[in-house]
C-alpha cells in the first residue's frame, strides 16, 4: 500500500514543532482520515477537533500546506504526496494543543450582535408570508457552518490583531443575514460602523476564497453592508439632518 508523510504541528500555548508521521493511504482518503490513522496507531494523544466528517459542522478547520481548509473535505488526491503534507492549526487563534485552537472569541463576538427582532405576524393565520426570492439571498448566508476559516485568513485579525475593534467576515455574514431577513426590524448599522469595524475591511476577498460553503462573503454580505453604512452615515443630507436631530 502507498504511504505518505504528514508533517503535523505538535505543541501547546507554550510552543511546539512539526513532527513527521508516515502513514498508509487508500483511495478516497481525506486529510482527517490520515490524522485519525496517526492518532489511532502512532499518537493516541494527538489533539484534533472534528465531528461530522462530511463538511457540515465546521469543526476540523486547519491549515493544510498553508491553506485554510476543512480536513474532512480535503482529499489526498488533491495534494502532492511526493513531499510531506503539512497540517497546522489555524494561526489566527490561540493554540490549545496540536491542531486544536481556542475559538471562543467568536462565540463572545456573536453575543454582542443584536439578535433577530421580527415584525408582528401579519398573515391571517398568525404567521408570516415570505417570498422564496427574498429568502434565497439570506439562505446563502445561513449556509455558514461556523468553521471560522474566514476569520483565520482575514489579515485584519491575522496580522493586525484588531479583535476588539473588528468582528470579522463570519460576523458580517451573520449580521447581513439578520439585516436582510425579510422579517427583521432591528437596526445594526451604527454598531457595524462604531464598534464592529466594518471600515477595516478593504475587500481583498481572502475570506470568500477559503469559504467551504462558497458563500460570496465579500460581494453579497460585506459590500452591501458597507453600502448601507455609507448611505446611513455619510450621505451629506442625512448627516445634516442628524446634526439637527442632535444624533451623531
Amino acid at each position: 500500500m502507498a504511504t505518505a508523510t504528514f508533517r503535523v504541528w505538535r505543541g501547546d500555548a507554550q510552543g511546539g514543532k512539526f513532527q513527521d508521521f508516515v502513514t498508509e493511504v487508500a483511495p478516497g482518503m481525506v486529510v482527517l482520515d490520515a490524522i485519525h490513522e496517526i492518532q489511532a496507531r502512532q499518537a493516541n494523544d494527538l489533539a484534533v477537533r472534528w465531528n461530522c466528517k462530511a463538511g457540515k459542522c465546521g469543526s476540523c478547520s486547519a491549515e493544510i500546506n498553508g491553506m485554510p481548509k476543512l480536513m474532512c473535505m480535503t482529499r489526498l488526491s488533491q495534494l502532492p504526496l511526493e513531499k510531506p503534507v503539512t497540517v497546522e492549526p489555524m494561526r489566527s487563534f490561540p493554540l490549545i494543543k496540536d491542531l486544536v485552537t481556542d475559538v471562543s472569541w467568536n462565540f463572545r463576538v456573536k453575543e454582542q450582535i443584536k439578535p433577530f427582532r421580527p415584525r408582528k405576524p401579519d398573515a391571517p393565520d398568525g404567521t408570516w408570508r415570505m417570498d422564496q426570492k427574498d429568502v434565497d439571498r439570506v439562505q446563502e448566508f445561513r449556509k455558514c457552518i461556523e468553521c471560522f476559516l474566514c476569520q483565520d485568513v482575514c489579515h485584519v485579525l491575522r496580522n493586525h490583531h484588531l479583535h476588539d475593534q473588528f468582528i470579522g467576515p463570519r460576523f458580517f455574514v451573520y449580521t447581513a443575514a439578520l439585516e436582510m431577513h425579510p422579517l427583521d426590524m432591528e437596526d445594526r448599522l451604527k454598531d457595524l460602523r462604531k464598534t464592529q469595524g466594518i471600515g477595516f475591511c478593504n475587500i481583498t476577498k481572502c475570506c470568500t476564497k477559503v469559504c467551504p460553503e462558497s458563500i460570496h462573503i465579500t460581494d453579497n454580505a460585506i459590500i452591501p453592508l458597507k453600502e448601507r453604512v455609507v448611505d446611513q452615515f455619510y450621505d451629506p443630507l442625512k448627516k445634516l439632518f442628524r446634526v439637527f436631530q442632535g444624533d451623531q
Partner: protein
Amino acid sequence: MAEYETHQYDVLVIGAGGAGLRAAIEASAAGVSVGVVTKSLLGKAHTVMAEGGIAAALANVDDRDNWKVHFADTMRGGQYLNNPRMAQLHAQEAPARVRELEAWGALFDRTRDGRILQRNFGGHKYPRLAHVGDRTGLEMIRTLQDHGIHQGIDVHMECTILTLLKDGDRIAGAFGYDRERGRFKLFQAKAVVLATGGIGRAYRITSNSWEYTGDGLALAYHAGATLMDMEFVQFHPTGMVWPPSVRGILVTEGVRGEGGILLNKDKRRFMFDDIPPLYKDQTADNPEEGWRYTQGDKNARRPPELLTRDHVARCIVREVREGRGSPHGGVFLDISWIREKLPNAAEHIKKKLPSMYHQFKQLADIDITQEPMEVGPTVHYVMGGVRVDADTQMSDVPGLFAAGECAAGLHGANRLGGNSLSDLLVFGKRAGEYAACFAKEHSAASVNPDEVEAAARQALEPFGRDSGEGPFQVQQDLQNMMQDWVGIVRREEELEKALRQIPILWERWRKVSVSGNREYNPGWHTALDLRNLLTVSEAITRAALERKESRGAHFRDDYPAKDESFAKVHMTIRKGPDGEMRVSREAAPEIPADLQQIIEEMK
C-alpha cells in the same frame, strides 16, 4: 483529594443538540438557572447533520394533512410499539414548534404563496417535512443556538459528563471534565435533562460522529433508570459506500423524496418486488404513479422507495446478498434519471439537494445530476433509550429527564424520517418545562463527596496503567463485533457469541492505558467513552437476543416473521442489585380507545 470547580444550577442540561438547546431555552424561560454541558463546541452537535426536514402536519402543501394522520403514520411506522401518548403529543405539538423556530429567525423554503414548504418522506402520507434544501438540521441548530445565547444560559463547551450523582433516590447533579484542560467539574443541580443523542459509534459503519457513544443511556442506566427498546437500532438505507473513507456518511432520504429511485446492478427497480401488506394500499404499483407522487399529484400513491427505512434497508441487503449489488457492495440510487422528466433537471437537483451534490462531487468524484450514487445501509439512529413519562419526560429516577434520541418511546420499532427533528423540539421543550417545575418544587439535593472522589479516581486510572493496549484498539474490536454479530440481520448464535465477547472487552477496557497528559487528549477521552459504548452494546445485544421475532428495525434471520406474543411487549434493561445487567419483558401500555379509533380510521 481530587480538584474540581463547582457549578450550581436549578436545571443542568447535558447535550446541546436540538433537544438540549430547546430544553435549556424552555427551562430558562420558566425563570430557573440553567447550565448546558456539551461535548463539542456550541452548534456542532449531531443535529447539524440532519438533512431532510422536520415532520409537522402544517398542511401547507396538502390540506388533507392533520395531527391525526401524522399520529397514525408514526404508529404504523413504529409497528404500534410506540408510546401512544408520546406519538399523540408529538403530532399535535410539532406544528407549533416549527412556527416557533420561524419566529426565532429560521428561514424555511417557501411555497408559492409564501408559507413554509413541505416535502415528501418515507412513511409520511402527505408532504410533511418543513425543510431548508437538504441542510435543515443546520438551520434548526443555528436558530436555537442564536436564540439561546441571549437567554442567560451558561454553556460549558467541550465538557463531558462522567457520572450522574444522586441524593438517595433523586438526582443531585453530575460530574465531568473539560476537554481542553482535562480539569474536573462538579455540577450540582436540582434537575438534570439528558439530551445526549445516540449510540452509532458502537458500530463500524455509521452516519454518526465520535460523540455518539450512548452517554446519556449509560449514565441513566448506571444511575438506576430503565432503558427500553434497545434492540431497535435504525439502519438508514442510504449511506455512502465508496470510497472507503466516506463509508457510512448519510445520503438523505430527500433524494428519494425528490424522485430518486433504487436500482440493482441489472438496473431493476427492486423496491417494487416486495411491498409489505401494511403499506400495499398506499404504495404505487408502477413507476409512473410513483413519479407523479413525488411531483405533488395528490391522487398518486407513493413510490416504494419511500417505504419505511427498516424495510428499504433490508431490501438493499437482500439485493447485495443475492449477488445483485453494485461494485462496492451497495445498490444504485439514481436521481439523474429525472432528466427524462424535467427540462432543467441538473439545476433542479442542485437547488433541491445542494449538499448531496457537493458531498458526492467532492468526496467521491460523482456528479449526481449525471450518474447514480452507490449506497448501502448505515447505522443511523436508536429508537430505544431511557424510558420516560410521556408528558414530562422524567425517567424512573426523580429529577432525571431525557429528551430526543436518548429517550425511548416515540418511535417504537422504527422511526420515520423527519420525526427526529420534531421529536427534539416537542420533547426538548417538555423536558425543559417539567425539569424547571421539578427544580422549583424541590430544594437543593446534596452531593456525596466520596462519590465524586471515586469518579475522579476512576477517570484517571488509565494514566497509571502500563498494559500496552490503548483504547482505540478496544473500540475498533467492539465496533467490528457489533457490526458483524448484532447488525442489520441477527441470529441467535451470533448474538450469543457477542454476549460472550462483551465481558472480555470489559476486561480489556479495565486495563487500557493512555499516554500523554490530561489536556485535550483523545486517547483518554476514548478510554472514558468506552464505558458508555460497552454498556449500550451489551444492552442492545441482550434485548436483541430476547426478542425472538422480526419487527421494525429488529430483524432475526432465525425468526423472520412477526410473532403476536411480542406485539405488545417491550424489552426493558435495568442494572441488578449485583451490578449485572437484567433484561425483562414488560407489557406495553394499552392504546386508548380514542387513539385506537384514529389508527383504524387511517388504515
